């Protein structure tokens, strides 16, 4: 099992060290780790001469765990991911200063999350009851929830209850439950404009503030579009298997109820048509962006970014709509926003190649970004959310949005 966890800053400084077992791990391991070549250092699982290291990097902070014995690697990585999530949730983000200012909290959290190298509880709701979040956040929380006693040093009642993700008896003056469908579209369009791959990864996110022990049922109008699902532990498996309804007792607060995939979508909402022709050391570039199939809602925050090949010495690009920026690392970003009704946005210009090069051999990949509020592109629709016992002053809300995940257009 894990023997030690280190948190390293983006300059390799050890910000925090948590020894978990009797086998002390010297922090010189961090120095060794930091001195490794980049391609090796970035691997999530590394064998050092003395230890096996697991790492994840979040917002510049490296979470490094060490062990000397065989263990499931995914377990270590999953655990580190949870640690990062919980910390970022507690501290309201993750960066060097936040961790250093709140290291006591971090220690406290780690203490409850893992004992003797074996993970205990990583449920944010439970941890929140055991350890008070730092002041600012807790103040905000108590304002938002109107519940001043939210933060306490008492023992979590949930830890002993038979529903480990829920405190025994939360009380709210107004009961609210929100369901968000959040979808990301991953797509690859090849140089002939064909859609090679198009998938949706979606999550049903919920925020629940319900008194007592609510029993909820969420049903979809068209559950058959879902390919593969993963559920929060609160979801009962049988009702889903027999009727495709989600039956559950929700955790208190925000959580991810389920995630799903929808494969083989036929269409993307946008098209991107890039063209590059090169001749005697210069390339002409033109990229057109437009709506391919109207989703029925406005497509917002459209962006297009790409990496200019190394052999490009200078670039002169402009657009008839939106703004174009080229950073010193040769990343070019075209911010379009919404598609105007009167014209097709077009990026055009020339790239000058390094001397000696006639043609371009390496082509950039265009990354597309967009956001559509109010619709889930997979077509998934929520039918209804039922509560077994309806508390007074109940408010239910539903939302949906789709954004681009990894949307690549190749040239």
């Amino acid at each position: 099992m894990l023997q030690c966890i280190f948190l390293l800053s983006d300059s390799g400084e050890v910000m925090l060290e948590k020894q978990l077992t009797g086998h002390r791990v010297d922090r010189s391991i961090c120095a060794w780790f930091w001195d490794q070549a980049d391609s090796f250092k970035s691997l999530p699982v590394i064998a050092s001469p003395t230890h096996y290291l697991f790492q994840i990097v979040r917002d510049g902070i490296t979470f490094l765990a060490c062990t000397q014995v065989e263990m499931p690697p995914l377990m270590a990585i999953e655990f580190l991911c949870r640690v990062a999530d919980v910390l970022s949730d507690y501290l309201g983000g993750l960066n060097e200063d936040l961790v250093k200012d709140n290291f006591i909290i971090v220690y406290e959290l780690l203490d409850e999350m893992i004992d003797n190298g074996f993970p205990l509880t990583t449920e944010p709701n439970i941890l929140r009851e055991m350890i008070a979040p730092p002041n600012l956040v807790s103040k905000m929380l108590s304002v938002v929830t109107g519940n001043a006693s939210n933060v306490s040093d008492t023992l979590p009642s949930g830890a002993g209850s038979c529903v480990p993700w829920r405190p025994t008896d939360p009380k709210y003056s107004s009961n609210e439950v929100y369901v968000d469908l959040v979808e990301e579209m991953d797509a690859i369009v090849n140089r002939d404009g064909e859609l090679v791959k198009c998938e949706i990864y979606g999550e049903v996110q919920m925020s629940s503030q319900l008194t007592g022990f609510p029993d909820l049922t969420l049903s979809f109008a068209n559950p058959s579009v879902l390919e593969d699902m993963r559920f929060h532990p609160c979801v009962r498996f049988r009702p889903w298997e027999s009727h495709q309804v989600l039956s559950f007792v929700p955790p208190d607060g925000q959580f991810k109820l389920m995630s799903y995939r929808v494969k083989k979508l036929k269409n993307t909402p946008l098209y991107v048509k890039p063209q590059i022709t090169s001749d005697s050391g210069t390339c002409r570039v033109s990229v057109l962006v437009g709506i391919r199939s109207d989703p029925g809602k406005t497509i917002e925050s459209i962006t297009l970014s790409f990496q200019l090949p190394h052999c490009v010495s200078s670039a002169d690009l402009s657009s008839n709509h939106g703004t174009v920026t080229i950073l010193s690392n040769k990343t070019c970003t075209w911010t379009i926003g919404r598609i105007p009704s009167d014209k097709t946005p077009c990026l055009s210009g020339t790239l000058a190649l390094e001397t000696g090069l006639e043609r371009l051999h390496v082509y950039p990949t265009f990354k597309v970004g967009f956001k559509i509020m109010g619709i889930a592109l997979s077509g998934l629709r929520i039918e209804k959310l039922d509560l077994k016992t309806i508390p007074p002053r109940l408010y239910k809300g539903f939302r949906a949005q789709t954004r681009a995940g990894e949307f690549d257009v190749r040239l």
Partner: protein
Amino acid sequence: MPPPAASSRYPSPSQPSGKSEVTDLKSQLRQLAGSRAPGVDDSKRDLFKKVISYMTIGIDVSSVFGEMVMCSATSDIVLKKMCYLYVGNYAKGNPDLSLLTINFLQRDCKDEDPMIRGLALRSLCSLRVPNLVEYLLGPLGSGLKDNNSYVRTIAVTGVLKLYHISASTCIDAEFPATLKSLMLHDSDAQVVANCLAALQEIWSLEASHSEEACREKESLLSKPLIYYFLNRIKEFNEWAQCLILELAVKYVPSDSNDIFDIMNLLEDRLQHANGAVVLATVKVFLQLTLSMTDVHQQVYERIKSPLLTLVSSGSPEQSYAILSHLHLLVVRAPFIFASDYKHFYCQYNEPSYVKKLKLEMLTAIANESNTYEIVTELCEYAANVDIEIARESIRAVGKIALQQYDVNAIVDRLLQFLEMEKDYVTAETLVLVKDLLRKHPQWSHDCISVVGGISSKNIQEPKAKAALIWMLGEYAQDMSDAPYILENLIENWEEEHSAEVRLHLLTAAMKCFFKRAPETQKALGIALAAGIADFHQDVHDRALFYYRVLQYDVHVAESVVSPPQQAVSAFADTQSSEIKDRIFDEFNSLSVIYQKPSYMFTDKEHRGPFEFSEELGSTSITPEVSSDIVPAQQFEANDKDLLLSTDEKDDNKGLSSNNCSAYTAPYESSNISSQMQELAISGPAASATTTQSSFDFDDLLGLGLSAAPAPTPSPPLLKLNPRASLDPRAFQQKWRQLPISLTQEYSVNPQGIAALTVPQSLIKHMQSHSIHCIASGGQSPNFKFFFFAQKEAEPSDYLTECIINSSSAKAQIKVKADDQSTSQAFATVFETALSKFGMP
């Protein structure tokens, strides 16, 4: 390279050097210690925070230990936590001072607040000071009986910590028995889970010297207990579920109904949000159904979707861990992801460690139906901005080409790469074209015309250069200017730094000479002269050899150096199937990521606490193959030319066919050594009967093993069957089921230790005494063998684990037997056999 011992390089320069600040803190703490003024807790908090922040940076603040302890009398929980943290960090180094802390921790263990009771108990157990263990017993005992589950959870883990500080104290206090009853009766799932974790560890460590612990350990795998856990698995949190699933993997089901019951119970775990749970469940499913071929295949279908979701939905680090496992499954069930190949298309923003694994997947799942799409996709990456990925994808195309029967389209793609005029693309492609031609000489016409157009000046990488030179030599008759290109290269002999290239130049010049003597003669002369003068041993020797052969008879030389071409039918895999099987048994472990079984890389010393899994789970039972497996990083290097030396491969097979009678895999290499092997082994390499002949074969290969079968020793009390056979899975099952009937230690004579430099020699030696090896591993000085033997008359088996330490010259054996009454007799036979090891 071990990490440097000095740990002081990371404190950032802005931090204080320590000394004066620490003294300062010390006096301030001292002032506060006795104070009861209001608000004193706040100032204490600030000071404690400072102390701990120094500690965190790495400044030694152990000198304020006494003051910290004095200040710890407080009711403020955060203050307490900070103090516990500090004490936990420094107690081990200050055993005298930690006596001070015991007092206040013990008091806190009786606090009203369960949180304080729990935390104090945890800190108390984490002090890990051996001479203070007696103070732990009381608080632990009452902690286990506490009415709050939080405290019980911590107490259970505390027992395990105590065990590691002082095993005897823990056992004498009969804590294991208490834990067992808690495990079976406690209402809190976390308490139960911690009991399970602690008991697994304690009993498996105890098992080596206590029969009772051994039985208890076995009882954890009993049917009622397994079902007790599986039936209520949903009550446990996700991490405890992983623990239970790992336990379930080791359970040997009684019949197929049992298997289906378990799979039904666990089916929904595949849908769990935690990837670790999903993967652990997958392992249970795969292991349970190993013996049921049909169901096993259905399992692949069932687990496919959840695994793919994990790959695409998690963070890149999670994808990496999953992808490493998928590769293992594809080897087992090639069809499994064949229609889902698009999942492994690389997205632009993915880190390259994920892309690399995806490329490997695409290579592995390519078959007749999807090759066109996959190769098209891979070709897109060849123009990728990331050069490393571009290279990898070209290699992937090449590997697919070598796997396929219909390579028509792929050859065209490869040739298009050559037209891209990117140096690294050309280099990678040349190597592949070379391999392709070795397998499919019929393509030479198309390839050679394109390859002939490449200027050797543009190629710098040795491997590519060597490939080009090989083709120049091999196809000299089809390339009009081959002799002149070679001549050019030979003239620059001095500037050629790679010995590999120079070797190829020699051979190519020879081959070219036989085909186009007049044009090459001069170049060959220069090459041989330069070669003989070369400082590199191999180059020198080869040049000299060619020279002598030519002198002897040119026709003989031709038949030796340039015989008619023979297509290579299959390239040696860099990893033997035995190794792959073994890794498969270790699914969901680090072995999968390193692509080698854990015995090859985990450090024995530190495996102590996990012997439970180590015993047979990781040293799984498959015929042993040579242990000099290249580390994972080096695989890539080997992959580059897709060739292991075939000699090496045959060595391995030759040896392994000795070890295990079940092993009869056909050989598939069509070069000379396999022909030699046909000479040696007539008929299929069937087990015991070929023992003699495979020795011959080893000798042919020049292994120089003198271990001829010794005459059977003078009739021992127990007669063993020389042709005993036991298949590995049966062995594994038996090993789990049978109790240890005998444990003994012998000395090994010095000759034996000397002979052990080749561990296989022991295996042969024991076999000559009718004791057969089924698995072996380890590295000097620790070797581990699993042997089995059968009684002459009846099918009664003896299983033996033998650990030999070559530095202490001791052998430790554990015997398990069907008929326990004769295990002593067997041990005698074993000892006699072992004592003769290494004797002439």
